[in-house]
């Protein structure tokens, strides 16, 4: 394995963390968006807000990590992607601004209508942002980004596969978020909310599953190189993802009972596996995608080794990644653990 491959691996690790945690935060915004009117949506929205508030900014930094590693370790790929897919990328950036600002302002602005406007901005942009990010990724996987950049600004991503990938990003985030919120509702002793998010996790899983199945057909039609490797070298990961998804469904479909709560001794079997299984299904897909387009960064126009920066730069990226593993990961674990034990919060 060359240094360039390791750097690409680091990029994928960043993408994995961002998909899991950033993706779930976007999903929270999706459930907020469709939670209904103020009275009906009050409690789910409050739960979503409590879960997101202390962690969303830290989760967002994975995106910065991805961008920085991409432009430092693979500058031509960064330039090619940004000069071709600038429309969905700019729309995603707009969504990031509106989502973060909407979320921050919703808590502290005065007046019901102003809070609703801020909340709607947050929720709507939580759907549009992952959609445009997905369209960007789908366009790259489809092989629509030429190595030299400046590909067609619209036809590069206004195609079935990129748009479907955008929808898959939204559904996957919603699915992850619903599964995470099941756990948060359980911890808060809110049994009805737990059921509420179990139902939503099932629905999102179904949509993500259908989108993935159509995606495979489209992948076959539009990105043959990636498809062929996905069902060959990537097959174990595809199977792993499917198994995780099925195991998760079987747990979610068990009857919950009515006496679920912090004081209850009743615990449905397997609930502790919900989060690992949901994460496992998503991680397997991301790495399956990586394996499928190897050794290309931009299939099939730019290989990892062609795009890589000189060795000293790659080594610096390794050192930074090692520092992140030693400093950032334990700090993140501390943040999540404090948040899950309700030691931090408003």
């Amino acid at each position, binding site marked *: 394995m060359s240094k360039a491959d390791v750097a690409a691996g680091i990029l994928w690790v960043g993408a994995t963390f961002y998909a899991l945690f950033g993706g779930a935060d976007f999903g929270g915004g999706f459930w907020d968006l469709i939670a209904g009117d103020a009275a009906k949506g009050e409690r789910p929205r409050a739960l979503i807000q409590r879960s997101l508030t202390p962690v969303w*900014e830290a989760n967002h930094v994975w995106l*910065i990590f991805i961008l920085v590693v991409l432009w430092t370790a693979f500058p031509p790929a960064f330039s090619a992607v*940004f000069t071709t897919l600038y429309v969905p990328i700019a729309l995603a950036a707009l969504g990031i*601004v509106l989502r973060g600002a909407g979320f921050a302002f919703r808590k*502290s602005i005065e007046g019901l209508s102003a809070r609703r406007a801020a909340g709607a901005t947050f929720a709507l942009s939580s759907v549009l942002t992952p959609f445009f990010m997905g369209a960007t990724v789908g366009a790259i996987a489809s092989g629509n980004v030429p190595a030299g*950049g400046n590909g067609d600004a619209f036809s590069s991503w206004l195609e079935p596969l990129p748009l479907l990938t955008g929808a898959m990003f939204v559904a996957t985030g919603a699915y992850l978020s619903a599964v995470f919120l099941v756990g948060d509702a359980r911890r808060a002793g809110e049994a009805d909310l737990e059921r509420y998010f179990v139902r939503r996790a099932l629905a999102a899983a179904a949509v993500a599953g259908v989108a993935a199945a159509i995606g495979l057909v489209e992948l076959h039609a539009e990105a043959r190189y990636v498809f062929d490797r996905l069902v060959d070298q990537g097959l174990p990961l595809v199977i792993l993802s499917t198994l995780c998804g099925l195991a998760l469904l079987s747990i979610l479909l068990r009857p919950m009972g009515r006496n679920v709560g912090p004081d209850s001794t009743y615990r449905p079997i397997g609930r502790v596996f919900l989060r690992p299984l949901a994460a496992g299904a998503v991680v397997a897909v991301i790495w399956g995608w990586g394996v499928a387009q190897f050794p290309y960064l931009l299939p099939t126009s730019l290989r990892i080794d062609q795009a890589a920066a000189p060795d000293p730069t790659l080594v610096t990226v390794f050192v*930074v990644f090692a520092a*992140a593993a030693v400093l950032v990961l334990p700090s993140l674990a501390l943040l999540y653990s404090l948040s899950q034990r309700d030691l*931090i919060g408003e």
Partner: protein
Amino acid sequence: MLSLDALPLAASASNLLAAREQMAFTLGFHIVLSCLGVALPATILLANYIGLKRGDGDALELARRWSKAMAVTFAVGAVTGTVLSFEFGLLWPEFMDRFGAAFGVAFAIEGIFFFLEAIFLAIYIYGWKRLSGWAHFWSGVPMVVTGIGGAFSVVAANAWMNQPQGFTLDAAGKVVDVEPLKVLFNPATGYEVPHMILAAYMVVGFLVASIYAVGMLKGRRDRLHRLGLLIPLTIGLVATPIQLFVGDTAARAVADHQPAKFAGMECIQETGSHQTEYVGGVCTSDGVKGAIPIPDLDSFLVGFSADTKVVGLADIPVDERPPANTLLHLAFDAMVGIGTALLLLGVWFAWVWWKKRDIPRTPWFLRAVAVSGAASILALWCGWIVTEVGRQPWIVQGYMRTSEAVTEADGIWFSFGLVLLVYAALGTIAIKVLRGMSRRWREGAADPNGTPYAPPEGSR
């Protein structure tokens, strides 16, 4: 007939202006928020420390309030900072393509600092209720360190654009070797980094103090206001003299390393010794009009002797001269003028404090503090105008022109217009939210931080 070849050129010239305007605007917006991210944690922790050490409830209350305000400014800063990362690719893709491998090194390091800052900021801001006093205080300390580390990395990247080194180009202009430490510790890092970190501490110190000065002018003379003025003002006033020293060193280094920038900011036309220092005025190719001239001072400031030779614009090739010399010159003078005025404010305060252990009793002192916040932000912007406009036409001094770096994408004017609209709304709402918080604290009302938008209590 219009040649077809000329079209892409015209489009890219128009793109260049739009991209530069958008970059300047978004950077100017973000830099105020990043100052808050760099220096507000230390200000808050100082109040927190005083509160814990002396059992001072007012100081603790100030720390709690400022951290609530920081939650808002950090969120806005996180997203506007993300926009800048996107703009590297959306506006300057050729720059990233050619030099990302070299100067990206600084940003890779910045990523770690930003990560840690976001994590510990969340723990600190949301840890007030359930963490014990000192554990909570220490959870905030990493914010101070990472704020400084983040500022170091980002400004080192900018310093590299002014003093590029630590890379080897092949015949095609591609970066084939990189020395990361030379990139990080380029000649401009030594003065740009401390200059910016001190600027952040000045902006935060004077900005927070100015809010309490306004309150005191409105008759709110309680202990909370006095403390809210004294803690940040002290930070700002301590940073100011150090800043003037660092800035003076920076200006001399610029005269040495980037003579075109220095000639632009000082309006020097002809190379020679005994250069006059012009304060204010309009730059023309015949010299400076309407300025206050101080004979020999410019040469003296550059080399501690009136015989020091300083390069004039006439000796710089026309296509390598920085644009908008009057803007550069006035920005430089405004920055230095504001810094000097803030130094005098500090001397005034220190004298009275030494004599009476109290802030000066005249409302003129409070008025001066009240404008110091806006003035320090103005000085910050002026400093960046000098750095960035003064480096033009280069994006990487001596290696790449800004016109070569810009994107060929369509719609940059449209995106600039959209950015103006969105940021105007963002800024307006952020200020409205912060003012609302301040009013609620004053009235002792609860923050509306319950459920996102539950129906009003009475309606159920």
